[in-house]
Each structure stands twice: as C-alpha cells, then as structure tokens.
C-alpha cells in the first residue's frame, strides 16, 4: 500500500486527462520541479553542469523528440545525428548573423528550421516502413553531414571547418562561451527541457498523439478510421525534428561550444539517442528522461567506480563499461521489454497491491 491512487476521484474529464491524474504523482512531480529550478542552480558547479546535467538535459530533449517519432508514431529513425547537426548549424548561422537577438529566439528558430528539413526527409515514410525506413533515414544522416562538411558557407569559411559558439547573452547574462556561469547554462537548458516535456506531453495526450499512436499500432486501420497517414507522419517528423533541432542547437552552443560536424553528430549520435529512447521506453515521456539519464550517467558512474574507487587501469574500465552497459541493456529487456518506463509502471502496480501479491 505504499503507492495509492484510491481516493482520487475525478469529477470532470478535464481533471481526468491532466498530466498526472494521481495526486501522489503530482506532488512528487512538483517536488522535483522545485528542486530542479530552485535548489540545483544554487549548488551546481562546473563539473555537474558540464559533465552531467547539461548532457542529460540536452539528450533528454533529443530523446523526447525521437520518442515522438519512433515511440509514438512508430517511424524508426536513424537520422537524429543529422537533424541535431541541422539545429546546431542553423543556430550557429543565426548567432553569427544576428548577434543581438536573444538566444531563446535563435534556439527556437533553429528548431523550426530543423523541422522543415525533417519534413523533407520524412516524405519517403509514406511508402517505406519499418526497418527499411530506419535505414532510409540514414541517407539523411550521411547526406546532411557531408553537406555541412563540404559547403564552407555553413561554417562561415573558417579555416578549421569547425564552428565555435561566440559569447551570447540572455537578459544580460552570458550563457554561451567558456565564461558562462554554470547555473545560467543549466537553467537555460532546463527551461527548454521542461518546455519540451510539457509540449510533448500535451501533444501526445490529445488528438495528434492519438493519430500518431494509431499510425504506429496499425497504419492501415488508422487510415480507414480517418487518419491521413501522410499528414500524421509528417507532423510527427516535424515535431520530432523540432525538438531534435533544439537539442542540437543547445548541444553546440551551450554544452560543447565548438563542434566539428563529423565527430559531434556522427551516426553514433543517432544510435545513442535511439538507445536512450528504447532503453527508457518507447512511447513515454518519462522514459525519454530515464533513458537519457541511464546512458549519460551509467558510463560516468562506472568510470568513477572503476578508476577512481577501484583504481583499475582506464582501458580495462572502458572495456568493462561496454560489457556492463551491454549486459544491462539486455538484462532490462528481459525483465521488461518495454523499457524503464514500463518497469516503473509495473513497480507502481505492485506497490499498489503491496503487501498482497495480487
């Protein structure tokens, strides 16, 4: 009886379809928000910001984006790295072209530009399905990378071919560049992450979300009951790419500060975000966070454990890291194929019944 939902009655459909229909959940969620917004900024240091929290928040946004496309709409994509690159380069071009405009606007515009590119590459999805589509999105991945590497306009003709984030401010506070304070960069990413989660949640609980899920679960039936598959799929591509673009922009401008396209947005990145989504749970916003946390934190935790605490050679630890991450992924799948999010749901179901087994 640790987890209770009894006693929560909803008298209106509005209250029933809110984000956290169960009071207990709602409070826990408020507590997390308060900590994230009001406590963490005061105790954060460079290491936590740059090594853990920023990547976590940024990957969470990307994972939410991909989850919309793959988890909700069922279109497996391996082009995430390429779309993040679009976000990053769009942001870079905007930052350098309009130095006085607020970063908020740049990042959102970068997302919008990525959305357009995403729709373009989403067009084949009308005919190509499943793993075929996944492989087809690789065409986007490789082509975009090639483009950003090849055309000097994208990197402002810099000799090195890298793009560097110049120092930019939001409300007079520096948030890009090396001297940006940790709390500011963290808050900036947190706001985007929070907004993304809210928007994603709103979209997925309403009509659009149901259209996506219908397409995912059975596209033919969806079409017969009145879903226009092209529009549903393209809207998923657009929304997904929008989030992925934002995460790419933040990844470049706030987190890394300098980026070389082939390295930062390689196919490995596409896979990484996909792993996050699947490990976390397809079709779950919470899962996107869980997956991002899992894949950002676990390697760091294993490194700290192996190198700093046990004093093993770094290479052995790195190899073990691979073995353990791999084994854990498999282990989780066997325990619960639908990801960490489902594991959490089942745990809740059990807690609700506790101490009675059924």
């Amino acid at each position, binding site marked *: 009886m640790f987890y209770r939902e009894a006693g929560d009655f909803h008298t209106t459909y509005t209250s029933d379809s809110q984000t956290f229909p169960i009071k207990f959940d709602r409070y826990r969620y408020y507590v997390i928000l308060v900590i994230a917004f009001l406590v963490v900024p005061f105790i954060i240091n460079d290491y936590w910001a740059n090594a853990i929290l920023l990547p976590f928040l940024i990957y969470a946004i990307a994972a939410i984006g991909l989850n919309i496309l793959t988890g909700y709409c069922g279109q497996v994509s391996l082009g995430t790295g390429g779309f993040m690159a679009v976000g990053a380069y769009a942001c870079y071009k905007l930052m350098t072209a309009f130095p006085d405009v607020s970063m908020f606007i740049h990042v959102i515009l970068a997302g919008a530009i990525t959305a357009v590119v995403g729709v373009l590459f989403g067009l084949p999805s009308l005919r190509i399905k499943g793993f075929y589509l996944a492989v087809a999105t690789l065409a986007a991945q490789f082509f975009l990378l090639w483009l950003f590497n090849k055309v000097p306009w994208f990197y402002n003709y810099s000799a090195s071919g890298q793009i560097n984030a110049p120092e930019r401010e939001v409300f007079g506070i520096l948030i890009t560049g090396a001297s940006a304070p940790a709390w500011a960069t963290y808050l900036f990413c947190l706001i985007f992450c929070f907004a993304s989660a809210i928007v994603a949640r709103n979209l997925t609980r309403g009509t659009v979300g149901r259209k996506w899920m219908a397409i995912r679960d059975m596209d033919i039936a969806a079409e017969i009951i009145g879903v226009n598959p092209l529009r549903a799929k393209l809207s998923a591509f657009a929304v997904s790419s929008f989030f992925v673009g934002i995460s790419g922009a933040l990844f470049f401008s706030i987190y890394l500060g300098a980026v070389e396209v082939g390295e930062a947005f390689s196919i490995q990145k596409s896979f990484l975000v996909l792993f996050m989504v699947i490990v976390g749970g397809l079709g779950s916003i919470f899962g996107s966070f869980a997956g991002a946390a899992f894949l950002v934190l676990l390697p760091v935790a294993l490194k700290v454990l192996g190198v700093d605490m046990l004093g093993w050679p770094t290479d052995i630890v790195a190899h073990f890291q691979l073995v353990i991450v791999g084994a854990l992924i498999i282990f989780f799948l066997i325990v619960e194929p639908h990801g960490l999010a489902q594991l959490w749901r*089942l745990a809740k*179901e*059990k807690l609700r*019944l506790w101490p009675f087994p*059924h």
Partner: protein
Amino acid sequence: MLDAAKTTDVQAETLLEVNNIEVIYNHVILVLKGVSLNVPRGGITALLGGNGAGKTTTLKAISNLLHSERGEVTKGSIKHRGEIVHELDPAELVRRGVIQVMEGRHCFEHLTVEENLLTGYYTRAEGKAAMMADLEKVYEYFPRLRERRKSQAGYTSGGEQQMVAIGRALMSKPETILLDEPSMGLAPQLVEEIFGIVKDLNEKEGVSFLLAEQNTNVALRFAHYGYILESGRVVMDGPAAELRENPDVKEFYLGMSDEGRKSFRDVRSYRRRKRWLS
C-alpha cells in the same frame, strides 16, 4: 449425435492432467485461480466459458506457450502421461504428440498455404512419401486449401486461414490436439464439417481433443465431457449430455429459455447475470 455416456463409463487412461494451476501474466495479473481438468485418451473434452474466462490461457499453459506471453504457471502442475511437462520446450511436447491450434489462426503469412501445412511435418521424420500422403489427406479434408495451395497464407480469407491452422496441426500426426476456438469465423457449414473431422479423427484414429469453444451448442454436441470456466475457475463439469440438460447452461450458454430458442431481437432489456461461484 454421439452417445456421450459410452466413453465416460469406461475408465480411460488420462493423457493430460491439469492440477489446480494458477497463472499470472506479467508478474501481476492473476488469470487462472486454480483450474483442474483431465483429458482422457480417446475423448473429446470441451472447455467452455465466456470471454476472458481463461480458456486460451489454460490451453497455452498446457502447451507451454505462456512464456512468450510473459505469463507463468505459479502453482499446480501439468502432467502428460504422468510426467510433469511444464518445464519442457514446447517443441518437445509436440514431439510427444500434443499440439495446439492457436486461437486467431496464426498462419505463417509469407509462406504459401502448402508450405504452411508442411511446417506441421517438422517434428516428423518419416520421409517424403509419408509427408505427401498426409498432405493429400489434409487436402481431402479441406478441398478449398488445395485450390489456394500456392497463395501466400497472408492473403487468404479468415476461414481459409482457420483451415490452414487445423490442417497444419494434423500434419504432425498428433495424439492429442488442443483446439482453441476452431469455429470462430467459420461458415456454419464449415463448422459442421470441422467438427465432423474432429469426430472422425477421434473415432477412426483415436486422436484425443481438448477443445476450447464459445460455440457451446456445437461443442456440447460433439464433446464427451465438458468443463465450464468462469473468471479463471472451473465452475461446473460433467458429461456433455448432462451439461446440455442443465438449466443454467441452457439459459446462459445455449441461448434457450423454457420456450425453446430465443430470438436475438428479444434481448433488448438489461438483465442481471447469475454467477455460480466467485
């Protein structure tokens, strides 16, 4: 119609024995709450009950297909010829002569009808001639399949797929067939035909059947013995002839009132359902 009393009199050898099993899905959903039943050699045993009563679950528990549904038998035992079998590989059970025809057909979509049938021969090693002979036999039972033998099973109609599923099971020359809703989606004539085949196999070749059916009417006509399942429990069992005469069974499963068959038009009013147990 069969004389049910004949087979129940003789104490036939028990092929399958299910002892008080409990099944849980996903570690949390309790579906079977103690089901026991026997399948005697040479008998047709019917498992009846409404939607979600647990018929399919019982059959899957017997044929060891629960694992792939994330279900498990947590209590009780299942014995085949006295041996505990619920740790066996499903394939091993087929080799021992127990085969299941799954609910909802489950044909191999991309294989042709004929290839589908041939997969049923997988566990046997009696050579090509025997295979062809058995194939021929199946085609005799289901002439429609012969016509469609070269088309991909995924494109055949619902009824055709049902025939494929049953035919496929026959190809393994089973001793016991667990048949899950064979009549579903079949035209009345074909239902008769399929039950005719069941009866034929039972009488001529001594195949035993455990039959999960919604179509109580037909099932009780052909079965020797029946179990009625309600929300995961056996609420009633007895020789088919007796069950047919039971007034409750008559009302709830056969759709007959005292005045004979009711019209489906006349059931517009709400009515409380009577429960035996639970």
